[in-house]
């Protein structure tokens, strides 16, 4: 995830099929190891699956405070249920589905305050400087930062369905379609066509704005 990588090299590592499927194969083993007391396995689960949980939260456009609480609730409950999860290899789907349900509860409880549609509010999330941000702060990378900003802006302006789907798909490592299905409550079979439509819609917007 190095922001400074030149496009030509970066494109070489683009997975032809979803890379997540391969990396996720270990999830079942990690869950079982964590059940047996292996803290390293728990850490690996957090590293591999917390971007997915975060993506689900962000896809539902909760406020920062609500989103943080949902994220915590999901992980607390996962730890609590660790020894009882029936299909450990599907822990990603379990987390995604739990996150979705908690997000929907938050949305339901906010009878007046609806999730934010204000891109400025969403932009605040990245105020903490990540290593990636420090890197792109350098002048050499300014152009790339600008490109990322414009890409993100176009993404944010997509319709709800597309923005939601793409926000989950862009978790790292890439989620499986089963996980995406659990995260959004949509049929596995509808994800591929919708993904294609949304990515091409985004590409068209970028082309129209001259963002390459």
């Amino acid at each position, binding site marked *: 995830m190095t922001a400074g990588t030149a496009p030509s090299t970066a494109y070489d590592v683009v997975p032809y099929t979803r890379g997540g499927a391969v990396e996720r194969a270990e999830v079942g083993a990690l869950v079982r190891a964590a059940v047996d007391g292996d803290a390293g396995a728990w850490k690996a689960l*957090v590293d591999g699956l917390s*971007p997915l949980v975060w993506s689900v939260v962000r896809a539902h456009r909760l406020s920062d405070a609500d989103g943080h609480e949902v994220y*915590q609730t999901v992980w607390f409950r996962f730890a609590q249920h660790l020894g009882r999860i029936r299909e450990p290899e599907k822990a990603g789907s379990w987390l995604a589905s739990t996150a979705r349900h908690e997000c929907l509860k938050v949305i339901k409880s906010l009878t007046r305050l609806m999730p934010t549609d204000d891109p400025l509010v*969403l932009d605040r999330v990245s105020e903490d400087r990540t290593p990636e941000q420090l890197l792109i702060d350098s002048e050499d990378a300014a152009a790339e930062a600008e490109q990322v900003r414009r*890409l993100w802006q176009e993404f944010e302006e997509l319709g709800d369905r597309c923005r939601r789907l793409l926000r989950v798909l862009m978790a790292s490592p890439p989620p499986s379609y089963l996980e995406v299905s659990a995260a959004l409550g949509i049929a*596995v079979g509808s994800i591929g066509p919708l993904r294609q439509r949304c990515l091409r819609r*985004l590409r068209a917007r970028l082309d129209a704005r001259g963002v390459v």
Partner: protein
Amino acid sequence: MSGMREENELHGEHDGHGEDERELAADTFDAAEFDDGLLEEELRRAAAVRDPVPTELRQLALDAYALYDLDARVAELTFDSLVDALPIRGATDAPRMLTFRAGELTVDVEVTGQGLMGQVLPPQPALIEVLGGPQSALPVPVDELGRFTSGARPAGPFALRLRTGADVVVTEWLRA
């Protein structure tokens, strides 16, 4: 999983046929699909920069391992007024009613702006703590019938830990 994906992409192609006016050749599809993959990967890199998992949240998830407790039974949430009850007209701040169940043991909880109130059923004495995370446990007063009150509304996710005799029960983590 990759097999499933390929199947989906086939559907996607048919879908594309319907949308696009022109008939696309097979290699054009490959190129377009490749481009989809590139764009998704660009978005993934952009997300890592613009909207990463906040560092403190990642740490909270790591610390959550301490909540894994083999000795405690989990009382599952079986009723949540937020989801299961019909909305009451005009009642904007009706208390949240929760019911947790572990085997024969039931815990009813009411969350109001003032705090928590609840009852263990069947009625029995118990030691009860309100958990707020791996490092936070506040004992609450309980009477002989298992009725309890806490003057503080949980600030974030919470769970109740109950000790009745030798039995330890923890309610499912929930956002108040």
